[in-house]
């Protein structure tokens, strides 16, 4: 059962963000669902007209964020949870270096998070309460051959969130980094991931772990597996096809 009463979910039009918005609304939380695609937001509003309202916004419009943040908290009537879920992972070939794709990942996965979560940090530092959740990824644990900039953008997010946690814990603010493994979402659909977790299950676990205020994997085995991967000697790691 969620104790959150007013939440902002950034990146709520699909995947984990959408499921989080629905789940929070089901527990009676008022949710501001932030995303680019207005038709998807209208769907969410229709599902929970008393609890969800959509905020149409492209997270790369960084300059709009400070004003939009305050406007949104005003419409919500308060704020105790902010979840940043926006993320992109365009297909990148094994020897492709495409700056446009790389830039979009940095802008959506990293800079958008900083724009939104900086505002959340300002507010929660002053109100001495609140929870910030960032959706990172196990992909941020190592730089790998398949997705150099996606890996780097998630590593950025992990480090940024860790720093926020260290800054804000003395004000009673909780900052939680979620590092999901493969999850069935639109972003990962083309990858045909075997054994990927349904987004709804991921959302349920994320809400359960949100109050923990640390780095969280969604599967107990991931903690061990990614500890090994993180500490795998670089000379051997480069020979692997992961």
């Amino acid at each position: 059962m969620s104790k959150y009463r007013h939440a902002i979910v950034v990146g709520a039009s699909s995947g984990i963000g959408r499921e989080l918005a629905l789940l929070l609304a089901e527990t009676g939380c008022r949710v501001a669902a932030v995303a680019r695609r207005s038709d998807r937001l209208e769907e969410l509003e229709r599902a929970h007209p008393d609890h969800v309202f959509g905020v149409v916004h492209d997270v790369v419009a960084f300059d709009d964020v400070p004003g939009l943040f305050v406007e949104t908290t005003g419409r919500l009537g308060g704020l105790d949870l902010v979840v940043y879920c926006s993320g992109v992972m365009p297909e990148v070939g094994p020897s492709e270096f495409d700056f446009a794709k790389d830039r979009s990942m940095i802008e959506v996965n990293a800079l958008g998070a900083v724009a939104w979560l900086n505002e959340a940090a300002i507010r929660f530092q002053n109100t001495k309460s609140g929870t910030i959740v960032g959706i990172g990824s196990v992909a941020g644990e190592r730089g790998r051959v398949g997705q150099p900039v996606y890996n780097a953008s998630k590593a950025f997010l992990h480090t940024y969130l860790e720093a926020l946690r260290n800054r804000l814990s003395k004000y009673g603010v909780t900052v939680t980094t979620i590092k999901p493994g493969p999850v069935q979402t639109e972003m990962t659909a083309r990858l045909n991931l075997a054994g990927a977790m349904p987004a709804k299950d991921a959302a349920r676990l994320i809400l359960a772990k949100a109050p923990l205020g640390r780095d969280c994997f969604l599967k107990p085995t991931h903690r061990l597996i990614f500890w090994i991967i993180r500490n795998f000697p670089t000379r051997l790691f480069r020979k692997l096809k992961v």
Partner: protein
Amino acid sequence: MEVPSNQRIGEAMGFGMVVKGDGYWYRPTSIDGVLEVFDVARRSGRKVVQRGAGRSYGDAAILPEGLILDLRRMNNILAWDPTSGLITVEAGATIEQIWRHTLEDGWWPPVVSGTMYPTLGGALAMNIHGKNAYCKGTIGEHVTEVEVITPSGQRLNLTPDDDAFYEAISSAGLLGVITRATLQMTRVSSGDLRVLPLSCANWEEQFACMERFEGDADYMVGWVDAFAKGKSCGRGLFHAAWYLDEPAERPSSLRMDHQDLPDTILGFFPKSMVWRYLKKLNNRWGMRKINWAKYTSSRLLGHGKPHPQSLVAFSFLLDYVPNWQNAYLPGGFIQYQSFVPKEHARMVFAEQFRMQQEARLESFLAVFKRHRSDRFLLSHGVDGYSLALDFKVTERSWPEVRRLAHRMNDLVLEAGGRFYLAKDATLRPEDARAYLGEETLARLRARKAEWDPEGLLSSAQAERLGLV
């Protein structure tokens, strides 16, 4: 639409720490600054809540996502005349600032709350009373002039000859901003009172004490043990107090060092630590024992023996233990105070105790006072008695505490009683309508339409009760 800066957001809560609401803080130092806050409200489509020292127990000085007009920086003492006893201050000046300024000249505030920290503006917004409510009424009755700034931009000077005076004072900050007031202080020749403690075995004796001294004493207050049942129900300790006459010119009792409370107990135990120890006992078991011990010691020690006590020590009992409210952390507490006409008070208070005991939610502190009625708009005064009850709140008990309060409300309303917005956190809209009456609400709306036609002034409480 413009938005207030995120940097201004801050935590705000009632003194009881149960209700919270984050808002955007504005702390003007001038009337222009006050008007500027209303402009921000207009441009951003937000409402404004007035706040002084934040000593209202409930949600009267909070408004989630609203603009918080904090008047504490407007706290200058503008004029003091030691011959007439008239003091003019800005609304953010506290009761403490006022008595410290006047006492050495032999003047004491006519009405004070149980703590010296409220601002005069807040005290007038709620029209507070003290332990002399039965003979001196509310603080508004001792004001000779107030300056009110309305959200529509008028700057008014109101005196007791104006009808609006009785509306600006007592209207919980919903009509206009009191920025300045002139208060008639009370002459005292000593900084001490003569205090007579009388131990009372039950409600009969408590009421008998009040009736015996109401024509004579300058202050009266009763402490009641809310855990006692049956024949002992209502047992406690009554205090009457009188101003003392000291023939000496400028007696030393008027000096600060005579009034200031020591910051240790028995000379070594720091008072700042006390709430942490109190917290350990702040449960039904511990408080039953403390109430019993206080009553038992009242029978054995001091019963019927008058003694001198400084004005500060007698008046500001709540300040004796610094930050005592923290003993109620993490859940906080509410204070439930009802005002009941004298014919029905005994029955209502005894029944309120029975309901609490049945619900196993006894008040940890119960205070009993005598009152009189007054002509202020959102008045809490009745010709009768009040009983103030502190209830501990936890996340789990909050719905039960509210249910208990609602059951007690029904009793109070049936007896023609009233409530007090400075304390309230649990009234339902229908309770407020019932005790205030349609005529009062119509007057409130009419004045609001004149002074605040855009409805900029509000509060979480006013929204909860449907007052705005």
